[in-house]
Every structure is written in structure tokens, then in C-alpha cells.
């Protein structure tokens, strides 16, 4: 028997794109049997997005999809067909958890909303995650995490000035919500084990993500102050920012530095060979008072240094610093390497492919990327045979009718 935490937990997973799949990935990598239900008519949008294996587009060739769907099985059902919905309902008693991330009306239109499912499976746990929640005037707003990042305030507080926001990369809020959703889901499983009660989790990506801007909102409600972008400025550290180092192989390299007190400032100057500096920078107050000149000074000092060598020297002197890494640097990073972060899994069609590993490690029940992501419908036969005892002939017939793939 597997000793993984969620061995024996069954999940029917309708989610797509990022928030839902990254959430159920936590369960899958820790032993739950997560069956991704996808439609060939309307596949997960990440299957249609790069990066692709060998830069070649293809429904089973997206690493974007693959990275978010490890350890899961794939079942392809065309849910717009009544027989597909019948198959889903027959599978329902097998499931402990159902997850979905459509706009709210989709499951209602299929007759598969929580109340309908609970009538069949009274202790069901169901997670619905969409942009703005299942209720309220904006519940049917469709969108992606990049838009949600604008709506929930992240764009406004990013950049050098209010004149031009510099947004965080990509669908930022897609990578905040999953951790909140996973906590809720696992706690709901624990609650059900204690009480026998299932429940419905209505998770708005918007509402979860605002927790990452909570101080700004507490401030606004208490004092009316509207926080704007402050560039790399900090009220705690000086210097604090990204400074350009020597280029390497024609690529620009930067280092992030944050100096917390005067002792660290002296240590930084020591690493730089104690160049002549303005005496007013000796104290934090002096450094706060002319951040622009301070940034120029630090920028000039580090411009000829190598980002890696300088990081090692500053850290050895007790100063917080690290290269501002690009996506290639991440693959050469010794610390990620030592953590065992990057993993190559042998995908059915993509072959050996680079997956991001877990962001934590456990001593007793370590999780793992137990298998690469499924191709579309890779486990349809296996899942329907196992869960419903469906005979191969029946499966073939349903495939001919394009109910399953």
C-alpha cells in the first residue's frame, strides 16, 4: 500500500488553465487518483499554448499543460453530449471530490451543479473556482489571470511611476489562488473524515488574490491612502534594488541587493574595495534621503563585477543579494539544482521533458511527480474499465459516437 497522504482519495477534475489544475496537482503529487476530464471539442486552453516540445504546436505537445498536470490520469468526454453526462454521473459515487473552473452557468446548464450532485453523493466535496465567484453581479465575467491581476490591484502597484504600470509577468493571480484553494480542499477532506459532511467551496480567484495585497487594503479602509507604485524603493532597506553588473556572453546581468542596516552597508563597501563615498551615506537616514544618488553610486560600483561572483562575496559578508535571474539562469542555478527542483519525465508523446518540481520537501511522506501529464484521453479506456467496469466493446462504441475519445 502506498504511504502517500492522499492514497485512496478520488478526484474528478473538470478544471482547466491554471488555478484548478495547479490546485489538484497538490493532491495528485501526494497520491490522490485525480482524473482530468477533458473534452476534445473544448480541450484545456493550455494544451493550445507554448512552450511546445521542440517548438512544435500540438495538442499533446504543450509543456505549459504538462507541468500543471503531473500525476493525473486523462479521460476525454464530450460533456455537451447527454451520454457523456450519464457516464460522469455513474462515476460520481466513486469520487470524493469534484473540481471545476468554468464560469458558473456551465455546470448548471449541464445539470451538474453542486445541489444536483449532492443529491446523488451526499458527502461530496466540490470546489468551484472562477474569476469572481459563484454569486454577485459579475459572477459570469470570463477572463484570465492577467486581467484579474489588473482588477485586483497588482498592476497599479507595479512599475516605476503611476504614469505607466509595469505589470507582473503573465497571469499572476493564477499562481496565488491555488495555494489557498488547496488549503481549503485538504481541510474540507479532513473535516469530512471527522464529521461525515461534505461541502461546497466557492473560490473566487479575485478574493483569494487580494490577500496578497492586504496591507494596502487595510491602509485604504483605515486612512484613505491609495498606494501607488514606488519602483524599487523601500522604506526598510537602502540601497534596495536591481543593479547592472558586467554583461556575460552578450547578455545583460543584474544583481538584486538589499541593505538592512549600517553594518551591512560597511560590509558592502568592504566587498567593493572601500571606494571613496559620500559620508552622508554612512547612515540609513542619509541613504534614505538621497536614494537616486545612492543607486547611482551602487550602480557604478557593481557595473564591472560579475553577478555570480558578487553574490557570493556579498553573501559571505552578510549582505542580502542574488542575481536577477532570467529563465535560462534558473536551469543553471545551483540552489534549485541542489533542491532537486528540475525533473525530467518521459511523456508519452513528448518524450523526456522538463518539469518544475515541488516547492517544498517533506521528511516522512515526500510527494513526487508520480507520472508525466496525460495526453488527451490517454487513460479513457483504463479509467472507464476500472471505475465503471465498462467492457472494451462498449468503450469502442462510445468512441465511434464521439462521446469519449
Amino acid at each position, binding site marked *: 500500500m502506498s504511504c502517500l497522504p492522499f492514497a485512496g482519495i478520488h478526484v474528478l477534475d473538470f478544471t482547466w488553465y491554471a488555478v484548478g489544475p495547479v490546485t489538484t496537482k497538490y493532491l495528485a503529487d*501526494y497520491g490522490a487518483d485525480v482524473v482530468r476530464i477533458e473534452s476534445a471539442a473544448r480541450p484545456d486552453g493550455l494544451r493550445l499554448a507554448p512552450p511546445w516540445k521542440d*517548438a512544435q504546436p500540438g495538442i499533446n505537445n504543450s509543456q*505549459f499543460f504538462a507541468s500543471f498536470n503531473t500525476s493525473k490520469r486523462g479521460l476525454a468526454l464530450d460533456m455537451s453530449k447527454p451520454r457523456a453526462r450519464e457516464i460522469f454521473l455513474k462515476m460520481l459515487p466513486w469520487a470524493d471530490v469534484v473540481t471545476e473552473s468554468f464560469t458558473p452557468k456551465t455546470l448548471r446548464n449541464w445539470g451538474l451543479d453542486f445541489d444536483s450532485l449532492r443529491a446523488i453523493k451526499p458527502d461530496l466535496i466540490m470546489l468551484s473556482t472562477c474569476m469572481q*465567484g459563484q454569486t454577485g453581479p*459579475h459572477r459570469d465575467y*470570463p477572463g484570465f489571470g492577467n*486581467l*484579474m491581476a*489588473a482588477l*485586483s*490591484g497588482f*498592476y497599479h*502597484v507595479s*512599475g516605476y511611476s503611476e504614469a505607466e*504600470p509595469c*505589470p*507582473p*509577468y*503573465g*497571469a499572476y493571480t493564477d*499562481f496565488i489562488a491555488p*495555494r*489557498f484553494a488547496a*488549503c481549503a480542499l485538504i*481541510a474540507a*477532506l479532513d473535516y469530512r473524515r471527522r464529521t461525515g459532511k461534505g461541502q461546497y*467551496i*466557492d*473560490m473566487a480567484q*479575485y*478574493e*483569494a488574490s487580494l*490577500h496578497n495585497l492586504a496591507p494596502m487594503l487595510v*491602509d*485604504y*479602509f483605515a486612512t484613505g491612502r*491609495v*498606494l501607488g507604485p514606488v519602483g*524599487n524603493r*523601500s*522604506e526598510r*532597506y537602502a540601497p534596495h534594488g*536591481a543593479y547592472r553588473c558586467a554583461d556575460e556572453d552578450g547578455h545583460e546581468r*543584474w544583481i*538584486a541587493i538589499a541593505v538592512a542596516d549600517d553594518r551591512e552597508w560597511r560590509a558592502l563597501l568592504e566587498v567593493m574595495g572601500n571606494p571613496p563615498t559620500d559620508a552622508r551615506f554612512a547612515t540609513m537616514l542619509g541613504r534614505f534621503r538621497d536614494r537616486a544618488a545612492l543607486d547611482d553610486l551602487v550602480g557604478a560600483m557593481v557595473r564591472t563585477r560579475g553577478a555570480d561572483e558578487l553574490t557570493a562575496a556579498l553573501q559571505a559578508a*552578510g549582505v542580502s543579494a542574488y542575481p*536577477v*535571474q532570467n*529563465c535560462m539562469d*534558473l*536551469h543553471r542555478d545551483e*540552489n*534549485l539544482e541542489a533542491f532537486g*527542483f528540475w525533473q525530467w519525465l518521459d511523456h508519452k508523446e513528448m518524450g523526456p521533458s522538463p518539469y*518544475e518540481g515541488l*516547492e*517544498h520537501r*517533506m521528511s*516522512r*511522506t515526500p510527494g513526487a511527480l508520480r507520472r508525466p501529464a496525460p495526453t488527451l484521453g490517454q487513460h479513457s479506456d483504463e479509467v472507464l474499465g476500472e471505475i465503471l467496469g465498462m467492457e472494451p466493446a462498449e468503450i469502442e462504441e462510445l468512441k465511434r459516437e464521439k462521446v469519449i475519445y
Partner: protein
Amino acid sequence: MRSELLNGMRMLDLSDERGALCGKIFADMGAEVIKVEPPQGCATRKIPPFLDDEPGADRGLYFLAYQAGKRSITLNLESADGRDLLKQLVTRADFLVEAFPLGHLEALGLGYETLAALNPRLIHATITPFGDQGPGKDYKAADIVSWASGGAMFLMGQEGMPPVQMSVPQAWLHAGAEAAVASMIAHYPRQVDGLGQHIVVNAQACVVWTLMNEQAMPLLHGDYLRRSGVFTGAIGGRRKTVYQCRDGHVSFLIAGGAYFNSTNAVIAWMKEEGMAPDWLAAAGGLKTLTPSGFMAASAADLKELDDAEEAVQRFFLTKTKKELWQNILKRRLFGAPVANAADIAADPQLKARDYFVTVDHAGLDRSFTMPGAFAKMSETPVGPQGAAPQLGQHNHEIYGGLLELSQNEIVELRAAGVI
């Protein structure tokens, strides 16, 4: 009222900003979270900005937001008696989260092995900047340094300008939330077999996980992405993602694929208002975009898209954020206002869902409104359980109640500088 979700569970939070959100999530889920602070107070009490810009141990906005609903005790781990008290607390705890430099707790005789021998059920999460194995395991990392180490900072900012952080630092929030998930994962089997474990969270890896798989690009497509301000450079050409409007900015993207209908809908709206240039009105749409393609690529295609962006920009400049948002909702455009705190506070959607929660802070004689439930749970509602504690506010309750020390003993501990 305390959420039933984790009611009865107790977490000792010895962390600082690196783990504050972990304990906050547990408190929101109904656990009793005891913030164990050094006698001078947790470092998070000193994080600016402060309420009304007046510094004070209870007035930091970070502290008010992320320590809400926790209890505070003071405990001097530098003293042997303080370490004994911590051991007594550990025997009564289910979870512990900390973010000390590696080896610090071991040096105090309070390492995981020691604590687990006292309480085998303990789930102990250690939050680190770079893991506990590599050459950087003892490195220091301010939030901006972790943001840089995980690749997020390189992608933010304009070409020719330095990479830029988010003005509300984010890296350690991801690490704290990750510690909460991992602790919950470990909790699930522990409630059956009674065995806890040690968790090491890696903040650098948490930041990598925000990159939307861009990190695989260099390996599969041969190059890495550069920061490009408000442009997205996904495929075939850069497209603008932020437009100016009358009173601010709005996020919008002209593209095919998933954005195809939305692009056509904005052109239709411009035509309705006579703001579509003749070439665009006559063409009836952008000929280079298709419902299946994300972006088009030839030079002529890019010229057409650039011209369209310019026309849309002129149009949006005649609208306010609010007008644009109303039309985004009505016309089902893929767009969103670049909202600020005031916009969010006034959002009718959040109002309709009773999202924001107000808690009373007795010490400051003031109430604070803050983000509410991170999810709506039908059987076990979650959300803030109260205001952030004052330093040592719960010493009597915890030392007297939980550890059953007498009033005299507490007075002695205080006199001896232990609490």
C-alpha cells in the same frame, strides 16, 4: 466565531514576514495560532508603512494585515527557562512554523529532532530562501532578493530600465502560503497514524512557480524572455496589454484565439460611437486575426495590429475606467481596469459577496477592514478571526491557561526576563 474547519488545532508561529501568511491562513481556517514573539516583539511589527504614518509596535499595516486573528505571547528563547517553556508549548501544539536561519534552532537545542521526540505528532515547517541543501542554504534574502532569484523580477519593468519589484513585496507571501499547503498535506495522514514530520519550504522555487511555465521556454524554444514593460511578447510579435484611459489605465489585448471575439467586440463598439478609423470600419475586422490563432506574424500583420492598437488607444482615452469596466462586462470583452485600492474597496461585486470584514482592535481603539474569506465554504465558513494582537496580549491566557502556570510563576518569569 472560530471556523469549525480547523477548530481544535494549534499552531505555534515563530516566523517573521517569511511565514506570516502561513499562520494567517491557519487562523482564518479556525486554528488557534500562537505567535511566539521575542520580548522586543516580532520583526514584522517594524515593517513600514504604518497606520497614519506613525510608527508603533501595533501600527504596522503589514502586521495588522497578516497577524490578524493570532494570539501573541512573548518568550525569550535566548534563556534556558524560555526554551523549556517552548518545549512545553510544543507538547501541546499540532503545527509549528518558523523561518530562522538554518541551524539556529538546533543551536538552541530546539531542532526538529528534539521537538519531534517531545511530540511525535508535530508538523514543523521551516521556510527558507534557497532550500537546505545548496551552496546558498545560509544566504540571506530580503523579499526583493527572493523575487529576483526565482526569475519574476527579470520579467518586470521596461527595456532600458532596471528590473522592478512589485511595490507590495510578494515573494515571502508565496512561501508562507506554500508552508500552509504543505502543513495541511502533512496533517491529513497525521490524523490517522499520529505521526508528524518536517517540511522545508523553498521560497526561490515558490517564485519560479509564478512564471506561468515561461521557465521552460529556453529549453524548448531556445531563448529566454526579456522584460518589455506593458507589452506581451508571447508569439510572433509584441502586443500592448495596458492602455491609458481618461482617469487611469485599463488592461486589454488585441489578439486572435481566445481574444478574437473580444477584439471584434471592441471594434464594433468603436464603430457604434464613430471612433473606428475608416480602414478598420471598412474591413469589418482585423484580417490577420483568426479564432484559432493567438497572434499573427508577418510584417503586414504587425502593422495592421499596431494601427489597431493606436485606434483603440485613442478610443479608450475618451472613456473613464468605470465606463470601460461597465462595457467590458456588458460586451463581454477580455479586459479589466487597472484598479487601485479605492476601486477595489468600492467594487459592487465584492460588496454583493460581503467580502470585506471589519475587526475591532481594542488596543488601538479602532476597527480595521480587511480581506475576508479566501473561499466561501458552505459548512465551515472561514475568514479573519479578529484583529492583530498586541505584544504579549495573551501571555496570561496561554501561560496561565494552556500551561497552567500560577500567577506567581508568571510574575517570576516576567521579572526574570523570560517572557
